[in-house]
């Protein structure tokens, strides 16, 4: 119950995890869960390919904010566009804006400067929770960011600080500093780490938890262990290949889960593998499992 109360209180929640662990499904399920608890939720997706709408049974938004379910909003962001918007906002003169935007210097600078895209995305999230959203959704209670799977999750959370250190003045520098302060605020910002109980994802999760502790002095609010195989029947000599494999996968899950819990004593949710393809039905089922688990913790 404590975790749910904690999640209810936050304004920004970043969901991180390695590719292929079901991070988007968990993000959508968490979004639905908090929306059902009466929070107005905005789910932000930054992956180059738009996917979340498929999980929430809505048409692709084309970058617009859309309401996928009651209290549950969705938007697909392109960091490039956010940066261009920032130029428009600061310059205002049409001809100049066009020149800058078509300049290779600007293009390369925004592509190449590390941390800028992350800063732009967090900047958007911050503006939203501060009540500067568009008319149809002025102020969500909480923004859930489904962070891109590439690289370690820490890169996302550490980026604004990196930018703030390198760029100390000007609007981008100010924005980065503002976000850094926001991300340090335990009452406003939190994170959820999603993993499967397999060797590589658990290894990366352990490294991520250590890096968060050391570099950000933070722990995630919740670790979700997804896609667990069910307990296998007692082994028998007549078992076929598939049954033996099932037993072995379950054993690997248990070993890896034990490895995780030997260094993580914080909130943990276990989500079972379900015979359902990725989509709205799976999101619903995972949401129910999470809700049950979190009430128990």
């Amino acid at each position, binding site marked *: 119950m404590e975790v749910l109360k904690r999640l209810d209180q936050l304004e920004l929640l970043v969901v991180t995890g*390695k*590719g*292929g*662990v079901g991070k988007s499904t968990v993000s959508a399920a968490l979004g639905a869960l908090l929306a059902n608890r009466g929070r107005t939720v905005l789910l932000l997706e930054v*992956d*180059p*390919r738009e996917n979340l709408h498929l999980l929430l049974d809505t048409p692709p938004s084309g970058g617009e904010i859309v309401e996928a379910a009651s209290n549950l909003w969705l938007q697909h962001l392109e960091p490039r566009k956010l940066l261009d918007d920032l*130029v428009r906002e*600061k*310059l205002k003169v049409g001809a*100049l804006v066009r*020149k*800058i935007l078509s*300049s*290779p*210097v*600007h*293009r*390369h*600078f925004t592509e*190449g*400067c*590390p*941390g800028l895209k992350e800063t732009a995305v967090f900047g958007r999230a911050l503006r939203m929770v501060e009540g500067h959203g568009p008319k149809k959704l002025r102020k969500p209670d909480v923004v859930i960011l489904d962070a*891109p*799977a*590439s690289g370690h999750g820490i*890169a996302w959370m550490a980026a604004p600080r*990196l930018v703030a250190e*390198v*760029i*100390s*003045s*000007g*609007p*981008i*520098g100010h924005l980065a500093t503002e976000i850094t302060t926001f991300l340090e605020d335990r009452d406003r910002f939190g994170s959820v780490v999603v993993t499967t109980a397999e*060797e*590589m*994802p658990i*290894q990366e999760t352990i490294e991520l938890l250590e890096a968060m502790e050391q570099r950000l002095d933070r722990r995630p609010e919740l670790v979700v262990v997804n896609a667990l*195989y*069910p*307990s*296998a*029947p007692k082994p028998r000599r007549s078992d*076929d*290949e*598939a*049954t*033996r*494999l*099932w037993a*072995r*996968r379950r054993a*690997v899950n248990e070993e890896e889960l034990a490895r995780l819990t030997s260094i993580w004593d914080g909130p943990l949710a276990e989500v079972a*593998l*379900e*015979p359902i*393809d990725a989509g709205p039905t799976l999101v619903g089922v995972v949401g129910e499992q999470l809700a049950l688990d979190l009430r128990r913790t």
Partner: protein
Amino acid sequence: MDPRRHPLVIVVGGGGVGKTTLAAAIGLASAHAGDDTLVMTFDPSLRLKDALGVGDEAINEETPVASHTAGRLWASLLDARTTFDRLIHRYAPDEAAGQRILTNRFYDRLSGNLAGALEYMASERLFEVADEGLHDRVVLDTPPTRQAIDFLGAPERIVSFLDSGALRIALKPWFDDQGKLKATSRLGILGRNVESFLDRMVGLELLRDMAEFFQAFAPLFEGFRERALQVQDLLKSPRTLFILVSGPGSGRVADTLFFARRLTEAGYNLGPIVVNRVHPLLKPVHPATKTEGHRLLSWLGRRDHEGVAELRDLVGDSHPVVEIPLLPDEPTDLKSLSALGELFESRLDEELSGRGTPS
């Protein structure tokens, strides 16, 4: 279509599909067949490093693996930053110029974080070892990207940046000896606007670092550009074969096809498509003993087999589709890695001889 006939084999695919392990297994099989083989990989699991018997000493160094195979096996772990640094040492006109870049604050942040740096460095290293020609075969594992094609575009992006003229502007010395912004009339209206804009947006400090970086980097660019073009040629050469690895299940078929199409359309030589970690079909269970678990496992088996069938159907004869079953354990030693390599080769042989795999 057969990696055993190509000196360069590049294993591509999305994150979490078992690409790295498969690349190592293919390399080991190649060494077993008597070819001197180098496996280059990113971020391998601890177990795979243990299986190969290599550690941090293999970062960007070709390290022999005690594989006792007919051909020697080497492993090298790729690291973007060290490769980048090495490149600068090679192309810098003198030691001092090299040091200026390596200690530049902008470079320091940039080299590890620059979009595409890791991808580019992988192809750069591939080119280096191909150029040296010390091995009969090189198997390259690629960084896990959602859009795995990004890896291939990296040399092209660098060339297009170098050709764009962005550098000519960036290279104009912006600052005088006192670190003050110089008069910029010769940059024209565009240069002035861009510069004053960047100044307002990010402040002079970063600009100063950037200008210094580009100035120090200038002598390197010609060599760098040449190199990027050569890498691009190498990737598209008929000597190079791509193996596309995908996860199981019909849900992945569209993604796999999309990527296969983009590869071939862009002129890369795509060989086998591997569907990895396919759940076996569960034998029917007596209803009395059937549990939720049984229902799940039969569903997974069916889902994965339908996925393979669907993919085979859509791919047709253009590429062999190789099905690799989910293994009870990830390979933890050379023996299990060899077994995986053998399995891959025998399944590929079945596909190539047109007999198809028994289901």
